[in-house]
């Protein structure tokens, strides 16, 4: 089972991923999500591009984790890409990087 390069869908996220922006972030995610659901054929792998995410807090990290879980629930594999170092460091500290690889959600 190799999802690599079969069908790739990329979600670009941006801005300050902090609680103060929570409503906007939700809109951003929900917008991307509905576009993803309309993609035909359904992609096997979803790349979440964080290149333009400037900052992230626990609220933002949780939303990002939720997005990845939703992707997994639909049988697709999420993958974070272009994660800025500060964002990666923050996500790691908060424990939200654990599920990143998708390996945990796959078949044993």
């Amino acid at each position, binding site marked *: 089972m190799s999802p690599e390069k079969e069908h790739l869908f990329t979600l670009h996220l941006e801005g300050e991923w902090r609680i103060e922006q929570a409503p906007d972030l939700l809109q951003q995610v929900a917008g991307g999500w509905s576009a993803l659901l309309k993609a035909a054929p359904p992609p096997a792998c979803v790349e979440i591009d964080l290149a333009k995410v400037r900052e992230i807090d626990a609220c933002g990290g949780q939303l990002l*984790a*939720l997005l990845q879980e939703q992707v997994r629930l639909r049988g697709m594999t999420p993958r974070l890409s272009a994660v800025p170092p500060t964002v990666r460091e923050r996500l790691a500290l908060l424990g939200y990087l654990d599920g990143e690889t998708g390996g945990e959600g796959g078949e044993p």
Partner: protein
Amino acid sequence: MSAKEPDSNDLSRFNQAFFEECAEHLAEMERILVSLGDREPDRDQWDAVFRAAHSIKGGAGIFGFDDMTVVTHALESLLDLLRNREIPYRTSMVDLFLEAGDAISMQLAGHRDGKAVDRQAVEAVTAKLEQALLRESSPRELPAAGVTAPAPPPSLQPIPYRVIFSPPADLFARGVRIEGLIEELSELAEPGSFRCRAELTGIPPFDGLDPERCLTRWHFTLTTPAGEDAIHDVFMFAAEEHELEVIRLAGEEVSPSPAIAAALAAPPPVTTAARERGDGPGARPAAEPDNSIRVKTGKVDQLINQVGELLITQSMLSQMSATLDPVLHERLLACVLQLERNARDLQGSVISMRLVPISTVFNRFPRMVREIAAKLGKNVELKLVGEGTELDRGLIEKIADPLSHLVRNALDHGMESPEERAAAGKPATGTLTLAASQVGGRILIQVSEDGRGLDRERILAKAAQSGIPVSETLTDEEVCQLIFLPGFSTAAQVTDLSGRGVGMDVVQRNVLALGGRIQLSSEPGKGTSVTISLPLTLAIVDGLSVSVGEERFIVPVSVMIESLQPSPDQLKMVNGREVVRVRGDYLPILRLHQLFAIDGAVERPERGILMLVAVETERVALLVDALVDELQVVVKSVEANFRHVEGSAGATILGDGKVALILDLSELVLMQRRSIAEAAQAA
């Protein structure tokens, strides 16, 4: 989307918890520091002071009160070095710490009540702390704010833990910076032993999702020598007890090599600190488990209210069942009796929830006495007795000021200078005793000293000088009462501590307002003692229900002296005012039916009952139709839904479900004076 309004409320509600805890930490710190005297603190005391400072800093950081973190950080750093004996202790440091505590208190008041903060003073204290730190620890550098973790006591073995934090849904919304907490936790851990995993507790669809709702549960594993308490401390302001689970791992997950395991089994290496403490880590008494929960006072009050309701229903039931044939309904009546007992027990338990030990007030006095005595050049030893005596939280807050006043008075007026004491053949150091005890349903608080005692002649002279009519025939007790008159002061010199005349009359008024009584006794050359008697709680009043016409009122038992049915020859008119003569005294008569415009009431005092009551410094006779019953009543607010009713201090609900006002005698006296003045004007 989530509304902003409730969030900010949540945040301020949470701030409140921090303010309360912060105040408690400051009080604890001060209590320990003041108790030291000239002794050097032991390790436990250092740890406790350090923990207090550390907790305040942590909380301030979480809630964004950055100004508070600066002072506490400097304080904490210095304390940390001291407790690890990396720098020498000097007695003068206590004053510096107390000063720092004051600065933090001021900042706290600034955030909590919007009071002005003297920034210069704060900066000065911070500078002093930092100087001390630099002076004493020249080789060490002041670590940057925010990254100091409490240095783990070197003698303890690292222990692996698993920590599970299940935060409430509003964690993000109330502004808790979880990142900071995790960072702080990671700093406790041995290098490389910290792991953090965020687990989503649910995966809701994005449609209708509240993005601020916290759906994360955190799992941490770490190995730390700092102990469980230190882990709990990290989450002190963010987590309720049940939200945090700390599990000590028995080396299963982090299994040490056989060599390490052997080392663990061997007695721990004794370090300097441990040796000086004279015991190993295992010998240290375990911290007393804190089996308490924080409950909002509003919730307790609600419970008291509901129990009050239950009591009213129960007494209605008793009244109704009293008409039943006791033989036919024996079992029912037994049940009603049982219910009454259960309800009373329940009421007692619920009221006890509002009770707090008086030590919360007493604790402020060691420092105050120390400072005042130093200022006055007097040697005083303070004794605290019965600090565990409990009374209503509401009373605690209100009794603090009158007590401070009494303590000041005792030090200023009662206590002699060391020379004077020596001349009188007394030990140079005087003793001031604060004692609390529970006697029946009341709390007695006594402030006594072994000073010079009241000078009868000087009081009489002073009273005469203030235009108070006195005579040489007054008993000693009556002379003592003069002290409570407005505008009375006996200090030969007016000092800046007691001031002039703002004294016992104010104290007495405050105590009376709490349903209390105050008594003074004194013996020349031996000392003076002031005793305050307070009800156990503000929520319940011992009262007499009285009838006036069709109406019922409650007279608090605390003001009652006696009641009598006067004979016609006891009744007189003096200056157009009705009075009753009781054992040589003429007391003005207050006609309740007149003040409250009640028809159909008894109008001739000899046909009704005169209740003699003490109102501040005077005594008056209240005319009512009859005494009905003596009972304990639950105090209810009238003002919650209505304006203030003059002459009343709240209301209660009687056994028949009707509302009865609780009388405020001070206000009734004022109403009487006004109506006399108005009548005089009209004439």
